[in-house]
């Protein structure tokens, strides 16, 4: 087993670090949270810069325009981006991590030739049209209907949790093409152009305030049959391919960002006055949150939990590189434990912030400085997106119990 960089890894790390140092200042500061048009433009500008430098689609095969980097290089790239504070995929998340890899695995040559370069260059934004108001954890019970009419499907229904729906050019859409078949058997995976008539996208306000999510209502939207990915009624299997990416490594960049946020929280804790004054040698000095053994150690526990998630990621990525993708044990174990770690992180952050845990923004202080309180509270709320989205923690436990431990299946 090896964890440290090989010589070529070290060269790659140096190259990425130098490129980020040079190019991040050119990109400039991200727009204010909730300004989605500006966010889209910003993310697209960054994606174009990555593409021009040869870093777009770092994990995609070279045959489809990606960099075809090794597993080590992919993780080094993500770690360096997180450490440098580079933007994450943002509006490109679905295209880069869900739709793109699914198209690589399942699409026709024509579909790949059209879509993959556009995704890589950041020209086309994708959204996800999987969940429905009546189909959450039980996704296979989805009811959005697609009726064949000549060389088109006519699609009617509604979708929810459509990430980046307001920004998207295409949607990876799950529809029911055969209502008579068993619930897993009559589903198809379609590419829906978002400029098709009959699509109504409405922003969805979450507990975080603004969010990237939308609701989407489809009223007799006509989608060409050639936009079918995989075979008709084989969409559940195709969706499982998408999920294997989602549960495998899609959260790695988030994890790495969370690891840097623990450093931020520790820094904040060292500066934030807490409770009473010291007695003894430090008499008269105000105690900080960091001086509180219980809080400091809990921060250490959270850091240890995230470090272990990083180790698990490296185990999962090593296994995936050996063939067959991330195994369910590793993927579900990651998803479940990472969710818990982020909730734990949020709880400790509330203890550090104490009476200053009062805003989702930075708190203005006298003298023009500010206290970065809101980002930690937003992260705490975001923990629910992780423990609910992409298969709730309870669904992950069912998967582990049934597929890994071999316990009896639910119904």
């Amino acid at each position, binding site marked *: *087993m090896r964890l440290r960089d090989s010589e070529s890894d070290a060269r790659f790390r140096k190259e990425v670090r130098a490129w980020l140092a040079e190019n991040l200042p050119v990109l400039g500061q991200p727009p204010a949270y909730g300004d989605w048009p500006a966010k889209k433009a910003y993310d697209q500008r960054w994606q174009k810069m990555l593409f021009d430098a040869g870093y777009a689609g770092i994990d995609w095969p070279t045959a489809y325009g990606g960099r075809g980097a090794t597993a080590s290089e992919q993780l080094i790239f993500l770690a360096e981006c997180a450490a440098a504070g580079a933007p994450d995929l943002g509006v490109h998340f679905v295209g880069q991590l869900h739709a793109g890899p699914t198209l690589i695995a399942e699409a026709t040559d024509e579909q790949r030739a059209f879509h993959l370069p556009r995704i890589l260059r950041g020209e086309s934004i994708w959204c996800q049209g999987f969940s429905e108001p009546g189909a959450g954890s039980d996704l296979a019970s989805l009811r959005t209907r697609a009726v064949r009419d000549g060389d088109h499907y006519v699609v009617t229904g509604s979708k929810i949790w459509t990430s980046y729906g307001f920004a998207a050019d295409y949607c990876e859409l799950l529809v029911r093409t055969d209502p008579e078949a068993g619930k897993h058997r009559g589903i198809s995976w379609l590419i829906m152009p978002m400029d098709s008539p009959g699509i109504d996208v409405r922003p969805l306000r979450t507990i975080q305030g603004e969010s990237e999510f939308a609701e989407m209502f489809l009223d007799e939207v006509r989608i060409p049959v050639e936009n079918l990915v995989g075979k008709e009624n084989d969409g559940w299997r195709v969706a499982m391919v998408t999920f294997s990416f989602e549960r495998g490594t899609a959260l790695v960049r988030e994890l790495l960002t969370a690891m840097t946020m623990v450093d*931020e929280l520790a820094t904040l804790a060292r500066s934030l006055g807490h409770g009473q004054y010291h007695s003894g040698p430090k008499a008269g000095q105000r105690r900080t949150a960091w001086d509180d053994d219980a809080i400091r*150690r809990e921060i250490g526990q959270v850091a*240890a939990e995230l470090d272990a998630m990083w180790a698990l990621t490296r185990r999962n990525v*090593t296994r995936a590189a050996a063939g067959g993708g991330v195994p369910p044990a590793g993927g579900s174990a990651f998803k479940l434990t990472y969710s818990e770690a982020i909730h734990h992180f949020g709880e400790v952050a509330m203890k550090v912030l104490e009476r200053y845990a009062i805003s989702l923004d930075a708190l203005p202080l006298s003298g023009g400085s500010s206290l970065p309180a809101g980002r930690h509270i937003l992260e705490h709320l975001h923990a629910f997106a992780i423990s609910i989205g992409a298969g709730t923690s309870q669904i992950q*436990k069912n998967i582990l*119990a049934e597929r890994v431990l071999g316990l009896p299946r639910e119904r």
Partner: protein
Amino acid sequence: MHFDLDEDALALQATVRDLCAGRLPLEATRDWTDAATFDRAAWRALAELGTFTLTQPEERGGLELGVAEAGLVFQVLGAELVPGPLVAAALVADVDERVGAGEAFATVVTRPPAGSGPARAGGPWVVPHLDLAADVYVVDDEGVWKAAAGAVEGTPVPNPLDPTTPMWLAGEVPADERVGGPELARAWRLRGSVLASALLAGNAGRTVELATAYAKQREQFGRVIGGFQAVKHLLAEAFTRAEVASVAVDAAAVALDEAAAGDEDFASYDDPTFNPVRAIAGARVLAARAASQNAKTAIQVHGGMGFTWETPIHLFLKRAWVLQNAFTTPEEAADTVAHSLSERKAA
């Protein structure tokens, strides 16, 4: 980066597991409560596989492998609940070949850093396996010291929590012979911590297996209890804790193997996520939690049977409670991780 077990590692684990099943089955080892009942021949057989000399050079009878491999073997020993001064044997093999070969026993005690933790100043030394040991080794900030076990005046701990880890309390442990300096002391603390965490991770994995097997055959309300979601979720959580603990221990062991020579504490590497001291401390936080929580889960899943002395799960819990404080404690380890965090202002 390649962070998975290769075929050699799996074969090594299988060899140790097979020997344990044959010579050190839990039905027998649970009665090894003192030197008189301890099966020295079985211990010797374990040593002959190279269990305690994995990291030793060939000329000292070792296999010249890394702490990574030793950690994998110790995870098996933890899963099989092998009793005896296992970690001490693997450390003392550095300085006494008889101990590495299983011909003699040693015990290692650590003097905690001054002022850390409760009742640290002046409290009595806690010495496990004093009756079995020929020598007692003391690890402190200045180095590693050796004293003959006979020279240590210890009071046996009544009714030891873990029946097969008998303990003694001693007011003094004489520092008779200096066998190594601060470097050896530091190396033993780190390696000892990793190997104890490996035992804990293995312990955590085994209790999930035992509870899962029980849940598949125990019927109530006309069905196996493993079909109830309340039970399934307990077991899935426990499985996940064990997996994560095992991966954290592997990462800590690999980090120790790959640490730069002379790496003092939080040395900085090109890879900002690489930090051996932090990885070792973090592994303890997770392995200790996994072992005790999983054993508790396993007792709960076994229901009334789990509460009996006969069912062996309580032995895993009690071993976990003792091991979690070997070489460091979960709280001390959490503090170590906290102190490794970098200064970073929010963007």
